[in-house]
């Protein structure tokens, strides 16, 4: 899908349908290894995504897929280059050794967050498999990183970003396109 200007692009029902489609694909790929599945949400807006995927899988199958949270601030490559230092949120990771780890984030933008997340995960252990699930993929990545599960590929012009709002954090579920703030 392509959007040319800022504004709201998706509402709660669309988010829900992208999410369930990703959940179905994860279940289909790992139906024989569901005991080893672990969802890891990247702080902050990957966390509600991971939690909702887990509860969707629970509704579908009765399985309890554990959810962890990961803050990648300590692993960023732009400390000292940003105007505002990010606030560190909770990292809470269960044992990941030998697990099928589904890394969850709301949007795949540059790929730098995922690069940092992979570094962080290596410090916590050695999962058997790591897959990347994102609700939206905006393309034009800066790193050679691609997602395994994508809710929707969204094309937007340079200088814009996709912003996912969650009930749990922002009070409502919707997605909008914003003009990127220029930090440097």
């Amino acid at each position, binding site marked *: 899908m392509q959007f040319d200007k800022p504004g709201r692009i998706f509402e709660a029902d669309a988010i829900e349908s992208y999410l369930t489609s990703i959940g179905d694909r994860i279940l289909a790929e790992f139906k024989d290894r569901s005991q080893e599945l672990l969802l890891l949400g990247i702080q902050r807006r990957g966390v509600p995504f991971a939690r909702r995927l887990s509860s969707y899988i629970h509704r579908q199958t009765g399985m309890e897929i554990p959810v962890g949270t990961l803050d990648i601030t*300590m692993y960023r490559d732009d400390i000292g280059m940003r105007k505002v230092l990010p606030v560190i949120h909770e990292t809470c990771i269960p044992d990941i050794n030998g697990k099928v780890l589904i890394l969850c984030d709301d949007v795949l933008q540059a790929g730098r967050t995922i690069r940092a997340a992979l*570094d*962080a995960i290596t410090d916590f252990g050695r999962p058997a498999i790591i897959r990347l699930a994102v609700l939206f993929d905006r393309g034009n990545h800066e790193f050679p990183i691609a997602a395994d599960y994508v809710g929707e590929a969204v094309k937007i012009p340079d200088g814009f970003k996709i912003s996912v709002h969650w009930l749990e954090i922002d009070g409502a579920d919707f997605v909008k396109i914003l003009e990127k703030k220029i930090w440097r």
Partner: protein
Amino acid sequence: MDVKWTRKDLLSIYDLSAEEITLILDTAAEFKKVSQRKIKKVPALRGKTVVNLFVEPSTRTRTSFELAEQRLSADIINIAADSSSLRKGETLLDTVKNIEALQVDLIVMRHSAAGAPNFLAPRVRPGIVNAGDGAHSHPTQALLDLFTIREKKGTLKGLNVSIIGDILHSRVARSNMWGLLKLGANVTFGGPSTLNPKAFEKVGVRVCHNMRDALEGADVVNLLRIQHERQRSGFFPSVGEYSKVFGLNPETAKYLKPDALIMHPGPINRGVELDSSLADGPQSVILEQVTNGLAVRMAVLFLVAGCLK
């Protein structure tokens, strides 16, 4: 999300808002977990150089800072007073200008002169972290004490915290006082009148000259180390008498609330300001203070490093 850290230096607790202090404590809680992992290191300060400039000797604070820097992946150099050119008559500013010329990012400094870090901070590019200056300030000690109390009690608001000992010469007492007052705790200073001036009442501290008044109803007691040379200077008649009148022992500890925390910045003079049975007892959080000191220093270094130009 609302609080922004904008300081390249940490000079004293007095400079910080309650929100900034809380941001440091929240950040430290996440850094504490790093030390509990198998791989106790994160790349947050990779490529940054930190100089530990200890013009006044210190082992525990320097070790804690050094480990904090290593766990953040910084490159580090230690300079101690007795091995530096300060002994040859170089001024402090010249020493630090030389360090700056080596493209260093942060300087962690301990100095016997109050205000030394405040003097340097506006004159040099690297960030300055105060690791103790004279009787003025020891911000990371206060932060680790606040962190420990908050972790154990949930909050600092409304808690009664008593600090006992040589208040007059103590940067720990002063830094704790500002931090505790900013976060809404009630502060009491206890100790002999020669070492515990009434002047602190002006900023809202309760000043007591006997242990019963100082300890009654306290949620936390923080004992300061009594230095033997203070006796020689006539501040109290003898160490034995000090211990009898102002030491915390099972008798005087009865004045505290039953679940009160017992704290000490170390090193302890066992049997002088603190009885051994209490130092090693269930209320003591003295070794947890050491653990938390590492986390707090990681948080501080991380925050100031993020604001370097």
